[in-house]
């Protein structure tokens, strides 16, 4: 099954021209009977900083980091780069009904399967 194969060369990316560097968020992707769930860790991104697009069978999301409080940095490990990641969508995903929410820096995407693509139990007649 080719769902959500990684795709780094995307035609839809406006970033390609300006060569912005992005951090790759860690994801968990899992499937159930009704669809797929994608969780992406993007700490430091507020709800307003998230952009999710579904286009040409591609799921893309970016997260803009909210600026840190002012002050002199004594020690720093936290990256300042925004997040971005792109996946190819399985044709069974109903792109019209993709939902997204942010939960403490974790973007949770729900990708429901289209009704006619779900496995269906067929009764055997005599």
């Amino acid at each position, binding site marked *: 099954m080719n*769902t*959500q194969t*990684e795709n780094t060369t995307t035609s839809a990316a406006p970033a390609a021209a300006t060569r912005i560097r992005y*951090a*790759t*968020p*860690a*994801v*968990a*992707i*899992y*499937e*159930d009977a009704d669809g*797929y769930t994608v*969780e992406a*860790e*993007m*700490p*430091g*991104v*507020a709800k307003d900083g998230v952009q999710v697009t579904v286009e040409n069978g591609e799921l893309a999301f970016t997260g803009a980091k*909210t600026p*840190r*409080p*002012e*002050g*002199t*940095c*004594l*020690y*720093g*490990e*936290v*990256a300042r*780069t925004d997040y971005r990641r792109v996946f190819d969508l399985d044709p069974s995903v109903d792109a019209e009904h993709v939902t997204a929410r*942010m*939960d*403490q*820096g*974790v973007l949770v995407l729900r990708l429901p399967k289209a009704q006619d693509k779900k496995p269906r139990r067929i009764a055997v007649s005599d």
Partner: protein
Amino acid sequence: MTLIRFKPDPAHVTPAAAPADLLRDFMNLHFPFFPQERAGMNTWSPALDVHDHKDAFTVTLEAAGLKKDDFEISYHDGALSVAGERKEDTDVTERNYFRRERLFGRFARSVSLPAEVKADQITASYKDGVLTVTLPKAEEAKPKNIEVSVK
């Protein structure tokens, strides 16, 4: 300033390029019965920053997907310690995963502050997956302006 323990944040490593991930994906695909959780493989360590302000220090720690009560924060002998646990959703069974890059479990980080702070006035907040601990400086540690008198 002393810093205890450093590990790069796994969120900033391109997962597809990490050999350990490739190996794990391969093993998952062909040998699903092989034990996956080897010691040290599933530990994580959130990235942290220390900032110096005029009246306080702030320690920010990137730890997405926890609850407020999952953090244990303590200050002792000039060092701030933050520990916690990220719990995995137990409804999802192993075989349903397509990709599993997120790390779960306990973490502990500790950092020494370069000056005295008011231990009883330390506050912490958790927003957008970032824990911010504010440590107000003790009076003697605050910067002072010294007037130069001209004779």
